[in-house]
């Protein structure tokens, strides 16, 4: 299929191929955690706590003697599911809002732009913290907070695309055939505006993983014993001098995942040749 060609091109480039391999590994960990993980993530073994990496525990154990590698593998589930769900909600809402604002203009556009520009002027972490302060901690709140924190970006990007596209002759030509707004937005404008928004969404997923880890670090995300990379790092700070691996390995997992997402996204931008369209926000 033609739509998959840019992905193939991206995978064939060196950095795209390497990052794709890491991403496949992380996704596989998240999907098949119960079969891959050598131990259960919540079995405590207090005499074996803070054990350094060994043959039996490749990444060592944490302060409760739980196998760190198993917790990191299960942690991929939390990180990826929260980030991907949140960004998906954000992309879909941003596409809808941005398309309506860009297409119809008028007071609706002014209202959307005002709110979006207001949230755009704050860092995402601040918006997320404020929202969690209002709705309370937990996995669902983190998802909602992240999706709202990134909404401004996708709304602005979509709106800019739609405003440029709606002056194309084919829009007028289709209107002259008797097409309504619905047909023009969903059959012409959104399909043409979709690619940069999807790629921006993919890149934002990397940021969302960091944001989720940050919120987890503050104890606002997944609650114990559910493993989350951020929360694991947080608990590792107390043992940083006696068991540094507790903080290092989750940190490496976050870094590897986010770097891979960014590299692959970059390769994809190159393959699709859309760098200019992403910059036009």
């Amino acid at each position, binding site marked *: 299929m033609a739509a998959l060609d840019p992905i193939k091109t991206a995978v064939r480039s060196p950095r795209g191929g390497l990052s794709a391999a890491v991403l496949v590994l992380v996704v596989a960990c998240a999907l098949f955690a119960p079969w891959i993980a050598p131990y259960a993530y919540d079995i405590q073994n207090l005499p074996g706590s803070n054990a350094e990496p060994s043959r039996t525990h490749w990444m060592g154990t944490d302060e409760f003697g739980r196998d760190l590698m198993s917790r990191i593998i299960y942690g991929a589930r939390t990180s990826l599911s929260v980030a991907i769900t949140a960004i998906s909600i954000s992309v879909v809402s941003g596409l809808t809002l941005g398309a309506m604002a860009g297409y119809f203009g008028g007071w609706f556009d002014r209202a959307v732009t005002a709110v979006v520009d207001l949230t755009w002027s704050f860092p995402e972490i601040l918006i997320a913290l404020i929202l969690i302060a209002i709705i309370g901690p937990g996995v669902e709140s983190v998802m909602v907070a992240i999706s709202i924190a990134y909404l401004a970006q996708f709304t602005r990007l979509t709106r800019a695309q739609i405003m440029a596209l709606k002056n194309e002759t*084919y829009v007028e030509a*289709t209107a*002259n055939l008797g097409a309504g707004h619905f047909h023009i937005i969903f059959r012409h404008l959104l399909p043409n505006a979709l690619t940069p928004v999807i790629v921006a969404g993919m890149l934002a997923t990397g940021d969302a993983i960091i944001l989720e880890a940050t919120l987890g670090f503050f104890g606002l995300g997944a609650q114990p014993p559910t493993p989350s990379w951020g929360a694991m790092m947080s608990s590792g700070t107390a043992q940083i001098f006696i068991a540094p691996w507790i903080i290092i390995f989750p940190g490496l997992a976050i870094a590897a995942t986010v770097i891979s997402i960014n590299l692959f996204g970059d390769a994809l931008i190159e393959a699709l040749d859309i760098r200019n369209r992403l910059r036009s926000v």
Partner: protein
Amino acid sequence: MDPSDPQSDDLVTLTDLTREFSSGGGFMKPRRTMRAVNNVSLGVPRGKVTGVVGESGCGKSTLARLVLRLLEATEGTVVFDGKNLATQSQTEMRKLRRQMQMVFQDPYSAIDPRYTIRRALLEPFQVQGDSKSAAEAKLAAEELISMVGLNPRMMASFPHQLSGGQKQRVGIARALALRPSFLVLDEPTASLDVSIQAQIIDLLENLKEELGLTYLFISHDLSLVRYFCDRVVVMYLGRVMEILPGPGVLPRHHYAHALLDSNFEPDPTRRKVVTMLSGEIPSPFATIPGCAFAARCPAATDLCNRERPPLADLGDGHMIACHHPMD
């Protein structure tokens, strides 16, 4: 003649059609209004080609969009086949669009780049809610594509794989899909090579004969208008200056004369002295109480600056808006 009479010779009748655009404005700053189309009254006779010529910015394209109600008129009416377009509901308007279609100036952006030619050709039916079986759709698309002289093998191509002329043919086929009786051609050849222009004009001429179409042909190409049109409307600053009932009729308005005279004559033995106009086109934002051309007209008098000349009939449908027409 009563424009609401469906038996009228005119398929489309424009009455006092005006469209204003405003721009600017802000804190303590007034908005400025310009009249792109200013009180245009015009009939488009059935089965004929009516040409509209004028310089860039004279309101030709705005007029085209008003005629099809792609833009709403500020004042005045468009009556199409006995129906006032402004009073039609959305549903009625959608039905009416089957009758009136448009070929656009820029074939390069007139087809969605993500659509195959086949999908673009079938879109008119989809939009109008004509359900077709796979076999019927195939037949309809093939009929359309051969009607405009393209190979049905192009059906699976994307627009970027076609040349400008081929794209314009697809644009024409799309406009004809719903079997319209009226076609607005907005500079359909302006962005094509000269050799391709001739082919497209030929095609349009043949289609007109075959399908009994009525054309409103917008152009700035004077020789093309003279060749192609049965009637020529000369516009200046949103106003109709003169309507020539036939291609051979000599213009008597000073502007129309200067415009049509600027046409290049390839035969050196028939070389002529070109009358050069002095001055510049007034700003479209300026309100001109008198004749729009008065500032540049060699025959202008006080009267021309004061009073707007009405469009008067000189006989045989030759209309002119001038206080002092040429002999």
